[in-house]
């Protein structure tokens, strides 16, 4: 199967050159319904996103005369396997032959395809039903065309594995043979669609489908943003201000220009704070190859004006956050009388947790190529966010967004970093500066770590009260962390609704008195999304603290956790002061404590919770709802007498509702487990004098094969109802890992680690 190909030649739609590709009328209608009157019901999920969700089969399905079925995927492929899963759903609903399926990548075009930005674990959650509609409509159009050709009622035509069948007469036609006729038919109305019986699914819910990009990836043919090559292309790297908000001072480029292969040094302007997605500015070295550009950059003589964040220092900042967490802050949820209950509690437990900044560090550093021609710009880039890319490039070039064409390459890891197109805007500016020659901009690893959009840093302070019987009577959580909002809006000092809704306010605990506060925190660097976002610090603290309370109560941590979760009930997230709920319907996507309970029980059972372990070993448990899915993990650790930590086994139970591609869900969870271990054991980005202290994978360490958990067992909760709402998959596996690991270390050693990363704290 081919990798990413250019769509502009894909004027094939159920037959060659039918011309029905242009949907001016249809798009106008969609736009009109997007702007409904104010009394229309509130939209949720994909429908609530800019551009909404499109389900016109003519946008996504093309059948050629030879039967080749081309499926257009408009999501970014960054390792979640979406190009495969996406095609599986359409192909299954069409009853197509997988061997004849080809996947092409959509251009970045929100008006045409609907919302394409790939983030928030929502590709399948937002699109599964639309993909089924696309497949069903295409199947019905093909059946109708066959019925017309045969002169029989369409009800007598069945679809069988890429063929249309008229059983009574024994006639049979391939998809390709009726494709041209099918393409001229109207798209059936949504109410007339008949969906396949899930019992007959060939691909959905099965694990034996190979990755559509598997061959290209294993042979080096797959193209990522960093691999793009264009005729006459130049190569660039940028020296950027080391402090967020800084700008160019004095500079001399003479020596850089002496380096063979260096063609030009270009000044890039620094956007004023808050700079949002805009580039940091600096000096770009443009050369005939990447190596020359790198050598040229080394020869630049630059001084920087550091600006207001020059004193950002992680040690001092931590002290500020701790001070803030020890004083009352803005109340974001309040039930009962926490202060009174804490005063009269038989036991009062207090704990503070710290987790530093983290960098996504995708293996492919940010990279993109751009070519500006007049007032038009073409981008070939590794991006999670084609829409944001179009808007940002248009803004820096002062051209209309429609004039920006975004060719989506494979993304060599995103984890949130490539939702921000600052690097793509740099490439566009450089192409313009080079008179329209194509320019590829590459980040080195150091650039990636120094000029990221980092995961926040936080102090989480928890206080709990237990009565004489060990029952929890009070819960006070103060969460203090700079907000992503500050990257975009000046003066933001509180976590936003989405950050608080990631496990700070929305705990379902059976505790009569509960308060959550969010004291102020100022931001001094670019904060952005990192896989699982604020669920990481919140779950780390909350799930560690549950185990600490269990210990104080003299209870088994799993039993104590289940009691806190309480009986099965559907809670409207608003009743937990969560107004966000991942933008999903608060009823369809209620907080289902039965499902959280279910994954805890499953993980515990599979892991052999309670069975004795050798000395030096221990198990820890943690559970968390995020992205409308439920995950629980049991981590088993071994800590030897030298304090060396190994992780022989992790069991993770997961409930995301219907499972479309079980193999990829398992893969995402396997990855999430080790990424959770990585951030807990090693992850830290720190600042001194406003500058990031880590330069590469020697100082910003990530987990490698030798220290990864040896045995990861994924347990998917059975899902049979394909009409049930889907949860997210890419992110929810990460949050329970750090606390389950820390709880396991405590069980093994009696040592409670509250400050991440663990690094050598066990060796002390």
């Amino acid at each position, binding site marked *: 199967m081919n990798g990413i190909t250019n769509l502009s030649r894909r004027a094939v739609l159920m037959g060659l050159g039918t011309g029905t590709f242009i949907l001016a009328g249809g798009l106008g209608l969609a736009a009109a319904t997007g702007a409904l009157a104010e009394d229309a019901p509130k939209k949720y999920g994909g429908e609530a996103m800019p551009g909404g969700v499109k389900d016109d089969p003519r946008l996504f399905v093309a059948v050629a005369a030879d039967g080749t079925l081309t499926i257009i995927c408009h999501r970014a*492929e*960054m*390792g*979640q*396997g979406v190009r495969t899963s996406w095609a599986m759903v359409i192909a299954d609903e069409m009853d197509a032959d997988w061997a004849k399926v080809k996947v092409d990548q959509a251009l970045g075009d929100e008006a045409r395809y609907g919302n394409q930005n790939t983030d928030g674990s929502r590709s399948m959650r937002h699109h599964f039903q639309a993909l089924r509609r696309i497949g069903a409509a295409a199947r019905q159009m093909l059946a109708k065309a066959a019925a017309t050709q045969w002169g029989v009622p369409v009800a007598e035509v069945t679809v069988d594995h890429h063929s249309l069948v008229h059983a009574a007469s024994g006639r049979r036609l391939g998809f390709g043979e009726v494709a041209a006729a099918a393409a001229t038919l109207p798209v059936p109305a949504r109410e007339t669609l008949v969906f396949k019986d899930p019992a007959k699914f060939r691909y959905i819910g099965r694990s034996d489908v*190979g*990755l559509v*990009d*598997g*061959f290209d*990836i*294993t*042979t*080096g*043919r*797959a*193209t*990522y943003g*960093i*691999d793009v*090559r264009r005729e006459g292309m130049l*190569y660039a790297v940028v020296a950027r201000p080391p402090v967020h908000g800084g700008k160019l001072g004095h500079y001399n480029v003479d020596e850089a220009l002496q380096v*063979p292969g260096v063609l030009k040094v270009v000044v890039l302007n620094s956007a004023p704070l808050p700079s949002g997605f805009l580039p940091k500015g600096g000096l770009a070295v443009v050369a005939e*190859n*990447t*190596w020359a550009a790198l050598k040229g950059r080394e020869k630049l003589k630059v001084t920087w004006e550091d600006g207001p964040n020059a004193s950002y220092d992680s040690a001092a900042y931590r002290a500020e956050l701790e001070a803030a967490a020890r004083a009352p802050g803005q109340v974001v949820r309040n039930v009962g009388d926490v202060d009174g209950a804490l005063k009269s509690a038989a036991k009062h437990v207090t704990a503070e947790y710290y987790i530093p900044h983290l960098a996504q*560090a*995708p*293996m*492919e*550093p940010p990279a993109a190529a751009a070519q500006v021609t007049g007032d038009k710009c073409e981008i070939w880039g590794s991006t999670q966010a084609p829409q944001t890319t179009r808007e940002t490039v248009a803004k820096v070039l002062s051209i209309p967004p429609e004039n920006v064409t975004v060719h989506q390459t*494979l993304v*060599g*890891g995103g984890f949130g970093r490539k939702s921000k197109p600052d690097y793509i805007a740099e490439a566009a500016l450089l192409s313009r500066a080079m008179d329209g020659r194509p320019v590829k901009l*590459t980040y*080195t*690893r150091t650039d990636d770590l120094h000029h990221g959009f980092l995961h926040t840093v936080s102090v989480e302070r928890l206080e709990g009260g237990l009565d004489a019987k060990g029952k929890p009577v009070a819960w006070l959580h103060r969460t203090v962390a700079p907000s992503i909002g500050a990257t975009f809006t000046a003066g933001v000092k509180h976590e936003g609704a989405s950050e608080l809704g990631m496990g700070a306010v929305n705990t379902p605990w059976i505790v009569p008195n509960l308060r959550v506060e969010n004291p102020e925190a100022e931001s001094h660097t670019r904060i952005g999304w990192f896989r699982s976002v604020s669920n990481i610090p919140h779950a780390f603290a909350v799930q560690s603290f549950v185990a600490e309370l269990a210990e104080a109560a003299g209870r088994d941590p799993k039993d104590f956790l289940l009691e806190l979760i309480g009986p099965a009930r559907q809670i409207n997230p608003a009743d937990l002061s969560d107004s966000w709920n991942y933008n999903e319907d608060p009823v369809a996507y209620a907080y289902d404590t039965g499902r959280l309970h279910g994954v805890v029980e499953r993980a515990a059972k599979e892991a052999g919770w309670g069975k004795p372990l050798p000395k030096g070993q221990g198990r820890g448990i943690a559970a968390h709802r995020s992205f409308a899915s439920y995950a629980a993990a049991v981590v088993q650790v071994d800590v030897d007498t030298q304090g060396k930590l190994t992780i022989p086994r992790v069991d993770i139970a997961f409930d995301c509702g219907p499972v479309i591609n079980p*193999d*990829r869900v398992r*893969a*995402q969870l*396997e*990855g*999430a*487990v*080790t*990424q959770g271990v*990585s951030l807990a054991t090693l992850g830290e980005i720190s600042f001194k004098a406003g500058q990031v202290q880590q330069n*590469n*994978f*020697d100082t910003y360490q*990530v*987990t*490698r*094969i*030798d220290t*990864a958990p*040896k*045995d*990861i067992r994924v347990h998917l909760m059975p899902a049979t109802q394909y009409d049930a709402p889907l949860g997210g998959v890419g992110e929810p596996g990460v949050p329970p890992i750090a606390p389950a690991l820390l709880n396991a270390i405590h069980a093994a050693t009696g040592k409670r680690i509250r400050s991440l990363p663990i690094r050598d704290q066990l060796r002390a």
Partner: protein
Amino acid sequence: MITFTLNGQAQRFEGDPEMPLLWYLRDVQGLTGTKFGCGEALCGACTVHADGAPIRSCQTTLGDLSGVAVTTIEGLSPDGMHPVQVAWRELNVAQCGYCQAGQIMSAAALLKDTPRPSDEAIDDAMSGNICRCATYPRIRAAIKRAAGEVQRKTASSGSAK
């Protein structure tokens, strides 16, 4: 002038001998299957074979290559059917896939020297290759699956001679 072979083809290079092989492959030859991940021999994304041994092309200059046979992921197998590649596909090892060319080159070199690697041997040979998507369990499983296959093929080609 430096002469060496690249995927079986003779090469003559007259430029700066300090140029790292990685950038020569990617920017000059257009062989972009070999990836850049760190530039400092810390991640393994750029792994290729020099006379069959795994090396980090970001830390190897063209000046180092005189008389050396270089193999990249593009040259590992003419049809993409090296047992390691096949095992990788059968187990759907890849997530984003970006690190996988380097992983495959390291694994292929390991199996050539150690047809039945233990877990420790796998750790030793593969811990220089970072996978940020953390596909490690499947990398390990795919190496073990390919191991049987490499042994079988070596045995049969040996007996054919």
